[in-house]
């Protein structure tokens, strides 16, 4: 099972490091990372494997959302199926 983490906000130093450290703490394996700047906003999208995470999916979500608040970024963690179903036929 995979989840998509999106991080959106103003670019600062160490965003990728902080998010990936938090993922590692919960044993979420990062498969792919892309970064871009859209309309002055930094946007990072990570695909992570959550089959072997050390907690409930919702705990990982809460942990990353809390991190988002700490670093002033908007972080969403969503199951990949929502994107597959909306954008693939």
């Amino acid at each position, binding site marked *: 099972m995979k989840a998509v983490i999106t991080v959106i906000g103003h670019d600062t130093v160490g965003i990728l490091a902080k998010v990936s450290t938090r993922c590692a703490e919960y044993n979420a394996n990062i498969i792919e990372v892309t970064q871009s700047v859209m309309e002055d906003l930094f946007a990072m*999208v990570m695909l992570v494997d959550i089959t072997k995470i050390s907690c409930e*999916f919702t705990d990982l979500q809460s942990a990353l959302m809390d991190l988002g608040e700490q670093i002033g970024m*908007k972080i*969403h963690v*969503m*199951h990949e199926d*929502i994107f597959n*179903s*909306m*954008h693939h036929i």
Partner: protein
Amino acid sequence: MLNTKDILETVHMIDAENLDIRTITMGISLLDCADSDIDISCRKVYDKVCRLAERLVPVGCEIEKTYGIPIINKRISVTPIALLTAVSGGNPVKYAQTLEKISQTVGVNFIGGYSALVHKGFSAGDRELIESIPEALACTSHVCSSVNIGSTKAGINMDAVGMMGKVVRRAAELTKDDNCIGAAKLVVFCNAPEDNPFMAGAFHGIGEPDCEINVGVSGPGVVRHALQKCPDGDLTEVADIIKKTAFKITRMGQLVGTAASEKLGVPFGIVDLSLAPTPAVGDSVAHILEEMGLEICGTHGTTAALALLNDAVKKGGVMASSHVGGLSGAFIPVSEDAGMIAAARSKDLSIEKLEAMTAVCSVGLDMIIIPGDTPASTISAIIADEAAIGMVNSKTTAVRVIPAIGKQPGEELEFGGLLGSGPIMKLHNDRSSEKFISRGGRIPAPMQALKN
């Protein structure tokens, strides 16, 4: 492989454009709860619904978190209570109180099905239930009621139409200290769908399975935002953009419905492909019409723009879902739509224009506040007009008007929450429809009924 642009588009839809699942509604049959003793019947209803819907709200919240998509309402629809009243007799309000207790036990926002289907005539229990509606809605806060008074196949039951004018008025009178909220929980239908997940008109039809999950999607803000990116395209392009957007919204509904059905172990019924507005800024169907190029919703061209929107929503959505049903189309509830409220306040939107719009959209005259001194016969006549549009066009139409008892012209009713607020709209109250309504009888089914 997932595309970053698609991912960010979805996140933006949810964050900034009010994309949500409007409702997961569990339909539950109560046919096996009927007992000749009303108290036993009520107890069976309570036990069955609480058993089946026990996990509805927690599962809804879990799905909401997993997919990161808000699910605004978790609701229940049940078999029309008039069918139970037919068996048990007694005061039907006891069923309303039971449903209210259920809503508190399982934590749903609304429970629909305090209903009767009388499009051809009344059978046992129907009159008793209809007469009890005002009291049932006044003594409960989560129960919704609907009555089907006409269909393309059966014509219009004008005796029932006559009754419903009085019932709507009475429902408002009994709740006049609470913004006449009783009438906002009551819908009068022609061609009522049996799998509608939206309130206040949801009930669980007798052709439906014992229990099922129906999902209603939303997303006017998403459609408007998509159109903003194409300010000068022609209307063919506009229709294409709406179709593509509706497809994405509906796919999400299908995903959520399938997940809920699996987790609850209940069959998945339908997705209702609807653009359901809320009073929140950025979530308005009227603003989509304005985005198409109308200065304000209600001006000339509104009916054409709505027809385009309604059709494109269905075309886009139908391929995205394995089963489509319910009301499916664009909703135009005046008090629940920021753009409609503004147009009604500025008197650019009249009840006549709304009536024309209902011929091309998915519902009818919805959440319209009318003068408190409107005679019951005028309300009945409004219902008859609307039912005629539905009957002749083989579509669902409905009337949910709220007589603003004790309020003066220029005042407003404030329902709060998703029901919104709105000004009193002008009617032709000085011209009577009394004689026409008092004739009663049935308007015969139109030629459109003879399809075999």
